[in-house]
């Protein structure tokens, strides 16, 4: 079987409860290699799902395959191909940056010389040179995250699981981390990250899985999800910039052209915007947030406007 055919994650009928409180309910999910975001509010079951995929927790029921392997039966083999970075930067604060990397490399079974070389490379790549010999406890939040990600890469994993990687980071550190995740993806490493931030999922992920109350309520590319909420809207504005009319559209060139042909006859001076629904709107719709009727009043959500004319 060639790798290109292999599914990154294959789940059917997955359930998990804690003290008879169901956290994941009968999940089915199939993901190809790539970058995926598990999107959902607090308590949706994101961390539990990631914990099961990373061998940390056992499922109560259902079939789970990660990289074609069973996280329970083939645990050790899977563990040498994946890495989990939890919500806290899980590092040894008493050890220096380089000692952290070397310890984890050794535990992955890398030879000592290999570990040393990889650790040095990662320190350089993540620009941690000046801090490499300082204890991790003295690092800033952004630096801890960088070291955390560097540590994830020590054994060259095929899949990196990131649980809310940018929670608690300032904007600059967040952007830097995004860059790194993109670079990983470009180098062919698959990433599965959980996030509460819609923009993060939108920017980083090839595919988004929306989790709510332990169920998958939607999945697909960001564009597909936005499509589900009802396509795009053509907005007509007058010379003063006031919105005068909204016309629903499928959003493809054919439909937009047909609609605009009608518009051009009636009000040739109107300025035209095609607005796609934002992921915020998608999210609210799917997870039972505010009613959809509200969304036209909320002009703040127009992040995805595309000026056509």
């Amino acid at each position: 079987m060639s790798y290109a055919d292999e599914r990154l994650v294959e789940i059917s009928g997955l359930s998990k409860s804690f003290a008879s409180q169901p956290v994941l309910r009968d999940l089915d999910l199939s993901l190809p290699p790539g970058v995926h975001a598990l999107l959902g509010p607090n308590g949706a079951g994101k961390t539990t799902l990631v914990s099961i995929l990373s061998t940390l927790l056992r499922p109560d029921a259902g079939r789970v395959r990660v990289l074609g392997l069973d996280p329970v039966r083939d645990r050790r083999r899977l563990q040498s191909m994946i890495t989990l970075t939890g919500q806290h930067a899980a590092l040894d604060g008493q050890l220096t940056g380089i000692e952290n990397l070397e310890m984890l490399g050794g535990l992955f079974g890398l030879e000592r010389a290999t570990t040393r070389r990889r650790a040095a490379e990662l320190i350089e790549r993540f620009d941690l040179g000046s801090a490499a010999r300082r204890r991790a406890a003295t690092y800033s939040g952004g630096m801890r995250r960088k070291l955390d990600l560097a540590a994830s890469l020590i054994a060259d994993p095929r899949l990196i699981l990131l649980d809310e990687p940018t929670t608690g980071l300032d904007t600059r550190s967040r952007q830097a981390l995004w860059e790194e995740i993109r670079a990983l993806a470009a180098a062919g490493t698959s990433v599965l990250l959980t996030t509460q931030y819609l923009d993060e999922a939108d920017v980083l992920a090839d595919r988004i899985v929306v989790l709510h109350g332990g169920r998958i309520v939607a999945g697909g590319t960001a564009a597909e999800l936005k499509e589900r909420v009802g396509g795009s809207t053509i907005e007509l504005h007058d010379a003063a910039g006031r919105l005068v009319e909204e016309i629903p559209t499928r959003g493809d060139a054919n439909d937009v052209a047909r609609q605009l042909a009608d518009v051009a006859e009636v009000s040739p001076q109107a300025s035209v915007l095609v607005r796609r629904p934002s992921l915020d709107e998608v999210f609210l719709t799917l997870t039972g947030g505010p009613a959809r009727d509200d969304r036209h009043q909320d002009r703040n959500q127009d992040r995805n406007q595309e000026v056509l004319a």
Partner: protein
Amino acid sequence: MTRTEPAAAPADAPDGAGPRPPQNTAPTSVAVRPAPGRPGGAGLISALGIVSRRSLRHASRDVESMLMAVLLPVMLMLIFVFVMGEAMAVGESAGREEYLAYVLPAIALTTAGFGASHTAVVVSNDLTTGLMDRLRTMPFPAVTVLLGHVVSSMARNLTATAVVLGLAALLGFRPAADLPQLAAALGLIALWILAVTCVFTFIGLLAGSAEAAGGYGFILLFLPYISSGFAPVETMPDWLQGFAAHQPMTPIIDAARELLAGDAAGSAGWIGVLWCVGIIVAAVGLTTVVFPRRAGRG
């Protein structure tokens, strides 16, 4: 190790398309790309070496704990020998040197026992920082991390025991024991350190935070006083004698004292060993049950 093959090349990506580097364009077989580490990760022995080295590094960098480990026996020794030594009449003859010989095992066990209770703090730290969860997803038995802390605790507290014995020698203590007796006395102390370490490893698993875990160590500071360690059990009130005579530290202290004096340990030696072995078996058993259940709770 060189990165020979890409991890993921989507089936639908045409050759050369997108930002992917050229070496990523060919779909590759799962088997072709070798994992850089051993498929099964680090073996048990090498993993134990790595985590033990880590725990020993912790111990050597935790200056405050080290200072405490040295200061506690020094203070105890000085107070008991110089403040109370002359007033205490234990055995046939009273005097500082006699009392020094009498309290020495208790001071050694108090110091080492309290030091070993620090294991709860380091174990709890690993769990609450999420580090243990990361380690559990790695290809080696995560329980070795606990063993690493045990190795470190033994090293730390045997060092503290050496400090106690060295100080006692400075104050004029001269053991009458021959080499096997000395080894047996040290062995008993080591067994007690191991027993306390195992119990506090378990407490570290249960404690909600490292601070809480540290708090339980106070038991080890007070337990020795209600034993034969500092005053003979016979001098205590009746209601206290029952506990003092039958708590685990009393036979260990009695046996160690006899051995250091060059006498036979007698039944106290075996009772002490049985106590320690029983405590270790119980603590290890509970730990193996609880440890896997604490996954994903960091």
